[in-house]
């Protein structure tokens, strides 16, 4: 999360030599990242990123504490000018007993501390100009002099509070309990919230829910223009429960993002007193009850023991021992040094972030300055690889490069597709794994094939290029019972040329990979035109399909050219690939070439028969195709003698007879 605070506000608490830009630079290097400084009407607004473990820094006071630790490291003298925790104490409030308030906590797990007081005779109006301006600078819209105070002290001290209209709370009683499923309330923004059950709720004596604790106040108990008496209410709710309710009801708020990260019980006192002080000044509020402070389990300071050598081992270089102690003290830790051991007492506001010695090392290292730590590569070590991974990885890249070099364009698409894409490609929706929280219907299902994506690619690029040849290599996802989906890597090629062009690409690729035993058999894929498709087999193993897309799919996409697809299982292909081809000795005797033209014949059959019937036949090439006629060139040679033309012709006759 990010917070905005101003430079002048920081100077309410801090005395420093550092200017706003130095503060930005030094804090970003050693602490919270100040993403921007914006100069406006004599003040500067810092936009600061707060990491989720350091909610204690999400306030003007929190940044003050960081600045006190960091700025002296850059030789910028920095002191605390006014410490609200030491000044805003209960003793500053003169308690009254005129109005009663009863707070009952049904389950101590719901709330670890509540500090509250009733204030009377408030005059609702506008806040003073300066306060309003600060809120605006920090990105918050002023509402009135009462509500503004709760926002102001949250930014100042990092502790959310809530202000109730005292008179709208039945029986002047607040009961803090767990909700039952289906209970409802209407929040400040007039939205009706149905509770999922087991949420923290506050009801009054009449059973009305008067707050969605930690998230947003209820409309019924909110401060209105005629409100006279108010309750200033500073709680520490169970962060996990606030978070759960906020997530389940979808209601997020600044307050929730504070509570859910775990707040410091010790800070409710200052928050209550500071809040009262401002309400007195701005809305003429007067105390009319006793201070209610329910705080059962006081924080017992955590102690961490760490040695100097443990610190230097993890950092990798020595940091001066006195500097180490200084840094920890400036951070507010209580440090006792016994020879080489440090006993460190963790203050309450760091109890959710410092648990182990590594956490202490981080504190020392960051304030010392990560930028000052030296840089050394670790020594080399041998680690065995994942089985076959190197081969797969290298071959995948080789395949991509080969396809690129013969003119194909590599595409990478999102792994998720829409229901329309599944239907348009004639695939079955039920085979596809669905996302339960998609961000768009365009990206709702995991792909089982890359074909739907490539069809869209072709469609989107129509008219941009006459011939298109695209490919993608990606994982597809296939449901398995009681296990993660099976992830199968596919290679899919799509062209708008013709069957033999695409087949040629595949044959060339296989040849590049030294795959020899390849067969193209009649295919049965429903995505492809029944007469123009084939099943591709390597060593009799199915590795994929190739063919013309079926006309339904063509019509679904409105293609005005035929589209050809091949989809192959990449790992099966790689398994059959070889780094080097099998070496064949060139014949030192002459080769006789003879041509043969035949009609109406299946090439695969012809090849099989030709080789079966001639011991001298070495190779067959297709010279020409014209209508039903195919002209082959046959290459005859022997490994032991020069073949005469007569002998070769005899072989040709044998072959002719068989076909």
């Amino acid at each position, binding site marked *: 999360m990010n917070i905005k605070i101003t430079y002048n506000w920081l100077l309410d608490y801090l005395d420093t030599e550092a200017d706003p830009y130095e503060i930005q630079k030094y804090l970003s*290097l050693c*602490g*919270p*990242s100040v*993403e*921007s400084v914006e100069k406006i009407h004599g003040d500067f607004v810092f936009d600061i990123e707060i*990491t*989720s473990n*350091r909610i204690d820094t999400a306030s003007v006071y929190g940044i003050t504490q960081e600045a006190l630790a960091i700025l002296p490291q850059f030789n910028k003298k920095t002191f605390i000018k006014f410490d609200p925790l030491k000044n805003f104490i209960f003793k500053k409030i003169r308690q009254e007993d005129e109005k009663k308030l009863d707070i009952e906590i049904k389950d101590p797990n719901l709330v670890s501390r509540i500090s509250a007081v009733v204030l009377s005779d408030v005059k609702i109006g506008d806040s003073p100009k300066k306060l309003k301006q600060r809120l605006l600078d920090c990105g918050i819209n002023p509402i009135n002099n009462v509500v503004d105070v709760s926002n102001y002290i949250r930014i100042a001290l990092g502790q959310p509070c809530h202000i109730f209209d005292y008179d709208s709370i039945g029986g002047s009683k607040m009961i803090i309990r767990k909700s039952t499923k289906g209970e409802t309330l209407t929040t400040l923004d007039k939205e009706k919230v149905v509770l999922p059950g087991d949420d923290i709720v506050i009801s009054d004596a009449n059973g009305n829910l008067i707050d969605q604790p930690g998230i947003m106040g209820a409309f019924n108990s909110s401060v209105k223009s005629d409100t006279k008496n108010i309750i200033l209410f500073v709680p520490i709710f169970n*962060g*996990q429960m606030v*978070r*759960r309710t906020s997530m389940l009801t979808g209601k997020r708020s600044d307050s929730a993002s504070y509570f*859910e990260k775990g707040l410091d019980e010790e800070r409710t006192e200052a928050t209550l007193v500071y809040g009262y002080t401002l309400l007195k000044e701005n809305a003429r509020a007067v105390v009319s009850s006793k201070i209610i402070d329910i705080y059962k389990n006081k924080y017992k300071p955590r102690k961490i023991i760490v040695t100097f050598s443990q610190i230097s*081992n*993890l*950092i*990798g270089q020595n940091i001066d021992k006195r500097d180490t102690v200084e840094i920890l003290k400036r951070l507010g830790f209580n440090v006792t040094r016994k020879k080489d051991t440090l006993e460190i007492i963790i203050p309450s506001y760091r109890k959710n972030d410092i648990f182990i010695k*590594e956490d202490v*090392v*981080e504190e020392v*290292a*960051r304030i010392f300055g*990560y930028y000052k*730590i030296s*840089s050394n*590569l*670790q020594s080399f070590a*041998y*680690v065995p*690889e*994942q089985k076959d*991974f*190197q081969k797969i990885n290298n071959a995948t*890249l080789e395949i*991509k490069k080969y*396809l*690129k070099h*013969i003119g*194909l*364009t*590599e*595409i*990478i698409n999102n*792994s*998720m597709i829409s229901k329309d894409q599944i239907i348009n490609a004639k695939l079955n929706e039920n085979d596809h*794994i669905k*996302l339960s*929280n998609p961000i768009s219907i365009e*990206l709702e299902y995991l792909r089982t094939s890359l074909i739907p*994506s490539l069809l869209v690619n072709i469609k*989107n*690029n129509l008219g941009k*290029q006459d011939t298109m040849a*695209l490919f993608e290599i990606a*994982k597809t996802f296939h449901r398995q019972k*009681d296990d*993660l*989906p099976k*992830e199968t890597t596919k290679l899919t090629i799509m062209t708008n040329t013709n069957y033999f062009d695409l087949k040629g690409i595949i044959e060339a690729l296989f040849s590049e990979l030294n795959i020899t035993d390849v067969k193209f058999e009649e295919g049965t894929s429903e995505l492809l035109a029944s007469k123009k498709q084939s099943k591709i087999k390597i060593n009799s193993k199915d590795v994929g399909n190739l063919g013309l897309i079926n006309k339904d799919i063509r019509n679904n996409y409105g293609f005005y050219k035929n589209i050809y697809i091949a989809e192959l299982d990449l790992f099966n292909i790689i398994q059959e690939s070889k780094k080097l081809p099998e070496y064949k000795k060139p014949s030192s005797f002459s080769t006789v070439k003879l041509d043969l033209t035949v009609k109406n014949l299946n090439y695969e059959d012809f090849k099989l028969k030709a080789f079966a019937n001639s011991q001298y036949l070495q190779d067959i090439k297709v010279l020409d195709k014209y209508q039903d006629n195919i002209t082959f060139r046959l290459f005859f040679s022997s490994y032991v003698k020069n073949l005469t033309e007569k002998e070769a012709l005899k072989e040709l006759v044998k072959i002719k007879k068989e076909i």
Partner: protein
Amino acid sequence: MNIQGATSDFKIQITKTESIEVLENLRIKYLGRKGLINSFIEELKKVEIPDRKILGPKINNLKKYIEEQIELKSKYILDKDEKEELIDITLPGKKYPKGSLHPTTIAIEEISNIFKKIGFIPVSYPEAEWEYFAFEALNMPKGHPARDDFETFFLDEAEDKKYGKIILTPHTSSGQNREMNRVKNPPIRMINIGKCYRPNWDSVHNPMFYQFEGLCIDKNINITNLKGTIDYFVQQFFSEHRKTRLRPFHFQFTEPSFEIDISCGICKGLGYLTGGETGKKTKCKVCKSGWLELGGAGMVHPNVLKKGGIDPNHFSGWAFGFGVERVYMMKEGLMLDDIRILYSGQIEFLNQF
């Protein structure tokens, strides 16, 4: 056998010949396996011996003559080609196919080569992953607010009692625990490059993106080693003009944690662009005040080592996870300002690579 006629025919033909191709046909006609000279030699066998003695040398002379003439003509044609034929040397040459690799593929190859040199082995782990590996194994138990930093796509599939729901992995860090389980005993030197998914879609986010995750576990691994590795990578991958900085950050699975920034390549680290006809300054929409986050890093949290069966008292480690597109977008010269174009399948864009 009309040697006289053949000679005069040849003379006429060779005079007319103006190209290497025609000359080659002429050579085949006279000197080829089934050519005129060979047919004369066949005929010669049938001739009486005395005549043979007269005809033989004649045929031989003709053969020599033809060979000489063809060689002369061949030289003449080639020389003429060199001296006289005018060509427009600026016309384009013959077109050869030019395809393209996806820029992400190029980036991944470069990154993995950089890490291979220092002994990091590439691995691959599931994209559809158990929640456990993305969160619990990384010190983020159920309900932990830090999980919000990794917004996640969930799959509408059955939950596992131990491993939780099936998700699309929001980061390559899910591979950390899997790699510890695979290797069992350190050393570990992993570079895990893979697809990750998060529900964000704007100029700097695509719902699917790539990360690369480095993990190094051994005895005495410390912060200086992490810095050394990052510096090595940055020096290899980017130009010397680019600056980097390490900032404190928080991740549940590292302690200490860092964020690594690199100066923006679009606005050259200024945070704004000056351009257009007005010369007005506009905020750079890619970076924050001139810096772009490369990604997170840190020393592996003891709890993460324990979950992977490694004793944190004996071993320590570092890890980082960077976005592949991010580092590539930041590369000098590429000046890519919208990540979504990478996965939009526009061939006019892709064909440039």
